[in-house]
């Protein structure tokens, strides 16, 4: 067990160094689909975070009972159970939002982030590490979603989370809130992340 990262490392890694969206390219469907506004994006991140935390804790608790060839089925059924709970809770307390997110809430079941974290972390490490990992990954996922959603909403409507941020003369680029805008924004932001990475590694390489 000595080679596994500690809970704190797991937590920190999830936020930037191993960001699920920009570094691992996981969970791309919700990343593109619900980022036409900041509010749906944050709700989505919260829902994914809740499911990820519950699933990671449960899988970590039963990790000694798992049989290797059945583990994926167990993961999926655990996740499906929690997604059903989240779906019902959203429909009960945030009806309008659950209508907006529509099929993308049930699609959390097949979100690769959760299955990947169950496989990489929760099925091998104790509960504290699994929970810390889930929190870190959720925050990283939330940040990635929020960054894409903010760019799309500001350029597409001139507003952020419903408040006017750009002056009225801004010719709202409707394309940004439509499907093509999602691909373009995400592609450009990912190029930005790559570029910052190269610049930083060059700097440290020069010093070292």
């Amino acid at each position, binding site marked *: 067990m000595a080679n596994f990262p500690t809970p704190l490392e797991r937590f920190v890694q999830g936020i930037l160094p191993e960001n699920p969206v920009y570094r691992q390219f996981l969970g791309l469907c919700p990343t593109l689909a619900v980022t036409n506004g900041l509010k749906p994006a944050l709700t989505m991140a919260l829902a994914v975070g809740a499911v990820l935390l519950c699933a990671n804790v449960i899988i970590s608790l039963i990790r000694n009972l798992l049989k290797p060839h059945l583990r994926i*089925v167990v993961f*999926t059924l655990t996740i499906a159970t929690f997604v059903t709970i989240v779906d019902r809770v959203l429909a009960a307390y945030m009806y309008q939002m659950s209508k907006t997110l529509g099929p993308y809430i049930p699609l959390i079941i097949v979100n690769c982030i959760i299955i990947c974290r169950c496989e990489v972390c929760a099925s091998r490490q104790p509960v504290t590490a699994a929970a810390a990992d889930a929190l870190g990954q959720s925050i990283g996922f939330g940040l990635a979603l929020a960054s894409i959603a903010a760019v799309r909403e500001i350029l597409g409507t001139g507003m952020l989370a419903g408040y006017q941020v750009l002056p009225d003369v801004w010719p709202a680029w409707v394309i940004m809130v439509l499907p*093509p805008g999602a691909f373009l924004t995400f592609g450009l932001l990912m190029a930005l992340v*790559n570029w910052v990475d190269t610049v930083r590694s060059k700097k440290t390489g020069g010093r070292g």
Partner: protein
Amino acid sequence: MDYLFDIMLISLSAALINNFVLYYFVGICPFIGVSRQVGMAVGMGSAVTFVMTVAVFLSWTITTLILMPGAPLSAWVAGFFMPADKAAAIDLTILTYIVYIFSIASSVQFVEMYVRRFYPPLYKTFGVFLPLITTNCAILFACLTVMTNIVGVESPEEAWDLGRALALGIFGGVGFTIAIVIMAGIREELDLCDVPQAFKGTAITLIVGGILAMAFMGFTGVDSGIRVAVTGAP
């Protein structure tokens, strides 16, 4: 005539107008991951089409017979344990997600075993992709669309029958194949281009996807246009 026309519109909409990948963003992972070569893209596309058809058939059957409010099979079973009026009102829709994902996973497993045993050439074409697509969002999305059109409709007459559901499954898969094959064709050319360092890999693929999505936006409104042209009323 009306029925065939309806099927045609559902197919056209699933394949082109509301393309699963470029409009609903489902199945993005294979769209980015398995679109390096045209041959692989065709294999992946046919595997998805095949599994989607099977999964839609299963989910339609399960929803109509067991899950939806007042479904015949579950009402019959419940009739042994409770009074008839309560049994007729039984509603298992809360189990939908768990049942769907379980039926998709197991059907993929059976399809893989069957194809490997009886159609080795076919298995060579797309067998390797079968386990991958258990967790493909496009499959679950197609099943959920079918469910919404059975459970979520206002009157029972509007609920989709098996023909409409299968049209969605087959042509949703065809739409996925079209998108991923176009993407693979472009990416084969891209390999010869001088892409800026920061854009290499996933970033440029996403930009290309954005341009493709713009092209597919040109289909918007085609379905309502056809409807007006054929029926004469909006």
